[in-house]
């Protein structure tokens, strides 16, 4: 798309590719120009330019399509893009890349000829490798007609560029002898491929006629193929723009070094203008004359001169040295890009093609990266470290406040905070994987991540460490601040009338701030009141007291459960003293908690016979939540305490609400159904209190069963007990346990004695139960919930003597028959179940319902 027609195609598409080893001619963009010098006055920009233009027009038509997009270059088309510098700038990167590629592709044969070493070693551009090099403007002396010392071609090179735009410069250069040398060199260069020869004597060739505008076909083709001319054309463009500024300057600079500082800037754009092979070629020891430092050129794909330094290619190499190496091969581009051409090509040329490709690729990558860095680094340093710290702290504080800092206190606090959720999750397997570790360890995570990031900063590891430390401190401070915050929830600003309450997610702003005046007082009062109340007003006050008792039990229970979680690691023989001590302490605490619980259960309160109010413990059991506490209590008490509780319950069996209220009542000869609430209580009791009971009794010795049964017989109203579900269940429990413990014949006498004792009690029980046998069944025959009765009967039947079994059968015969009859009308499944229930009993006494059918 360039107006100037430089070759925008990729290098691989260009004629370059066709460059074969045998193709030794060094393309010389200025070969044509050099011929022009023959007529002394002719060297002005116009001529030079036209010559190139002609050549282009004639030969590069083939590329016009590439350049102009295939459309005929109508006036309109052209006019649209007519923006020299802009167009150039647009493709500057491409250009430079191409140049690099080209440089790299310079065929080795050209570079390696040994004779090159004989040629003048220096380009004169070496100094340009130094970024801060500001040329001494010897050239200007030439401008003023003073013969440059050592006939340096350098100034001329400089002027030559200038001459392209400025007649003045052209004129002055004309007078300088060294110009001829330059041209000669150019010619020599152009011929060199064909007849390489030491270049030192340039004079002879000075006048060799070279057709100015019509280079030899060979040359021509080179240039066309290389796309070099376009580059030349395009560069002067830049120079053109600069001309007005740079032309006058040189003289001044000689005297005023300070101004020279600006020079580089101005000339920087001009760099491209210097591709004259001449300068490169001859470059005696006149570094001073070089206008500007072109070195960063090749690298300037990125427009980032600094990049160069990192690249490992010594831009700053002292001139002489690479001057030696860098001769003909790079000469075309070399002059303008010493850094590249001078040092690079040589190195690159020494590489194999693969290496070169790899190198170029790496180069391109690096360039891209650097460009990115450059873009990113645009705002570098905008914030000071203090700014960053400030922001970080604010962020951290927000984090910590948002999460409340509970997490630092460990799982305990989380549990306290979140008890329901945590435990619920544990029980029911909620999503959280580690319930003890709440998800909000933000501060830590943040710190970790940040630390990692800074830790990886290879560039300044020390700074990174520092930063981590600082971050840690900040996190600490932030956490502490957040912790401290809730303590002063209010801020009173001096002189203001109100208070400002802080609030956050953790501690919402309290809308009501009611302080209990003295929390200690109500309690002693109620405690003092309690005894009297208990006896005076047994209804509401009592209920409250009982509820309070239950709550106390629960809170102690929870303390114990908490405490259990804190059990220190199990003791071993070689445990450390500290561990042992912790264990001791733990045991002490659990012991004291146990005692507290025991006190609060009030099991040991004196039993007041015939008292209107039930025993406190029984009262506790009369509340659903009291019942629910029993299984938990049983886990935390000793066997002795368990048997005590059992005894207490058994003694008060008929006083239990689940028995007292569940005894069927007769009203007008009809059994009144048990109220639903009582039934619920009964069920709850059966589900909560009885299981630990049974569990205990299942391992109890016979004398326990005997003793408990004795208590039932002695202390309770057995008729009432036997008519309730709970009562029957308890009795079944005793009887069946005893039956299991019946001693087999070769038993020790003590066991026999126990058994005898039991048998006596059993007989007493049987006698007591027999009259109520018809009434032990709940409801009518159709009531299916009578399994427990059959179980009881079965238990009784197993232990009964034949005579007792007879009485048993007689007692329940009617019900058995009724049930069997009722079963006939039932669906198969239910019938089987109910008959099975009946069979429990029937089989216990050696019968079967089948026999009845």
């Amino acid at each position, binding site marked *: 798309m360039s107006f100037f027609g430089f070759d925008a195609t990729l290098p691989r598409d260009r004629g370059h590719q066709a460059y074969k080893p045998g193709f030794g001619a060094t393309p010389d963009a200025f070969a044509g120009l050099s011929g022009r010098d023959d007529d002394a006055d002719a060297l002005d920009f116009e001529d030079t330019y036209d010559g190139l233009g002609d050549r282009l027009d004639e030969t590069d038509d083939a590329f016009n399509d590439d350049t102009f997009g295939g459309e005929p270059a109508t006036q309109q088309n052209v006019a649209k893009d007519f923006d020299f510098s802009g167009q150039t700038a647009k493709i500057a990167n491409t250009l430079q890349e191409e140049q690099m590629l080209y440089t790299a592709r310079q065929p080795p044969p050209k570079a390696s000829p040994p004779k090159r070493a004989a040629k003048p070693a220096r380009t004169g551009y070496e100094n340009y490798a130094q970024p801060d090099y500001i040329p001494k403007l010897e050239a200007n002396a030439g401008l003023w007609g003073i013969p440059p010392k050592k006939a340096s071609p350098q100034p001329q090179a400089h002027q030559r560029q200038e001459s392209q735009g400025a007649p003045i410069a052209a004129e002055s250069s004309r007078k300088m002898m060294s110009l001829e040398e330059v041209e000669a060199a150019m010619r020599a260069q152009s011929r060199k491929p064909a007849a390489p020869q030491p270049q030192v004597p340039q004079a002879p060739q000075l006048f060799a006629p070279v057709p100015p505008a019509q280079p030899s076909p060979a040359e021509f083709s080179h240039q066309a193929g290389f796309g070099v001319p376009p580059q030349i054309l395009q560069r002067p463009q830049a120079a053109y723009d600069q001309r007005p500024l740079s032309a006058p300057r040189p003289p001044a600079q000689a005297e005023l070094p300070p101004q020279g500082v600006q020079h580089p800037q101005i000339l920087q754009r001009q760099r491209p203008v210097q591709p004259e092979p001449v300068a490169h070629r001859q470059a005696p020891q006149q570094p001073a004359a070089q206008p500007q430092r072109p070195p960063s050129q090749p690298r300037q794909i990125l427009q980032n001169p600094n990049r160069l330094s990192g690249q490992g290619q010594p831009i700053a190499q002292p001139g002489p040295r690479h001057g030696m190496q860098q001769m003909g091969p790079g000469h075309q581009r070399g002059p303008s890009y010493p850094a590249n051409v001078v040092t690079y090509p040589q190195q690159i040329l020494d590489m194999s093609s693969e290496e070169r490709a790899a190198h170029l690729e790496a180069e391109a990558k690096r360039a891209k990266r650097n460009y990115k860095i450059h873009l990113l680094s645009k705002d570098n340093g905008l914030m000071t470290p203090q700014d960053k710290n400030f922001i970080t702290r604010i962020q951290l504080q927000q984090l910590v406040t948002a999460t409340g800092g509970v997490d630092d206190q460990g799982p305990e606090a989380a549990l306290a905070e979140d*008890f*329901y959720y945590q435990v619920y999750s544990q*029980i029911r397997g909620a999503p959280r994987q580690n319930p003890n570790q709440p998800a909000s360890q933000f501060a830590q995570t943040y710190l970790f991540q940040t630390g990692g990031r800074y830790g990886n900063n290879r560039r300044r590891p020390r700074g990174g460490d520092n930063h981590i430390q600082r971050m840690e401190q900040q996190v600490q401070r932030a956490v502490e601040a957040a912790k401290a915050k809730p303590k002063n929830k209010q801020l009173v600003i001096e002189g203001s009338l109100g208070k400002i309450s802080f609030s956050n997610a953790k501690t919402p702003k309290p809308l009501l701030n009611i302080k209990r005046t003295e*929390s200690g007082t109500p309690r002693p009062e109620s405690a003092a009141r309690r005894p009297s109340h208990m006896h005076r007003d047994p209804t509401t006050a009592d209920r409250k007291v009982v509820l309070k008792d239950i709550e106390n039990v629960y*809170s102690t229970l*929870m303390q114990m459960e908490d405490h259990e979680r804190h059990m220190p690691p199990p003791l071993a023989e070689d445990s450390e003293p500290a561990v042992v001590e912790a264990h001791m302490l733990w045991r002490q605490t659990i012991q004291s908690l146990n005692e507290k619980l025991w006190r609060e259960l009030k099991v040991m309160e004196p039993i007041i016979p015939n008292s209107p109010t039930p025993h406190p413990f029984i009262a506790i059991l009369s509340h659903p939540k009291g019942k629910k506490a029993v299984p938990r209590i049983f886990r935390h008490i000793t066997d002795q305490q368990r048997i005590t509780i059992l005894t207490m319950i058994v003694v008060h069996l008929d006083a239990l609400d689940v028995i007292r209220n569940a005894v069927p009542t007769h009203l007008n000869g009809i059994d009144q159904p048990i109220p639903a609430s009582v039934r619920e209580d009964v069920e709850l009791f059966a589900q909560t209190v009885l299981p630990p009971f049974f569990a205990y009794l299942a391992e109890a010795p016979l004398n326990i069963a005997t003793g408990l049964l004795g208590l039932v017989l002695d202390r309770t109203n057995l008729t009432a007990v036997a008519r309730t579900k709970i009562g029957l269940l308890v009795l079944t429990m005793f009887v069946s346990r005893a039956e299991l413990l019946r001693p087999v014949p070769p038993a020790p006498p003590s066991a026999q004695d126990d058994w005898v004792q039991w048998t006596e009690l059993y007989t007493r029980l049987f006698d007591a139960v027999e009259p109520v046998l018809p009434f032990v069944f709940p409801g009518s025959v159709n009531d299916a919930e009578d399994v427990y009765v059959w179980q009881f009967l079965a238990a009784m039947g197993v232990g009964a003597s034949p005579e007792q079994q007879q009485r048993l059968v007689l007692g329940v015969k009617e019900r058995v028959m009724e049930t069997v009859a009722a079963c006939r009308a039932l669906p198969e499944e239910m019938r089987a179940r109910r008959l099975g229930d009946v069979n429990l009993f029937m089989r216990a006494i050696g019968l079967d319902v089948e026999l009845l059918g």
Partner: protein
Amino acid sequence: MNRFFTPFFKTLVDHEVTVELKNDISIRGTLKSVDQYLNIKLDDISVVEEIRYPHLSSVKNVFIRGSVVRYVHLPGAAVDTALLEDATRREAAQASAKAKQG
């Protein structure tokens, strides 16, 4: 109290609840999240009295500001009452401990 309710509601996430608003609309839906203000997010909602509030019939999910909620009807099976009781006990104990301190 929010401290207490928020975790409680967290256990009910993905259960169906009915939220009764102070403007008498009852919305049944799957509880998606609850925050400390007891703002509630429901999915797959249906209004209990759909005929009275036809404008809500096309709404599929809602975010309810906590302050407009009158009741939340909970699925009984998803609530562990005993545990909830304990949790309230703890809460009460902590509150009283705090009250004593302050």
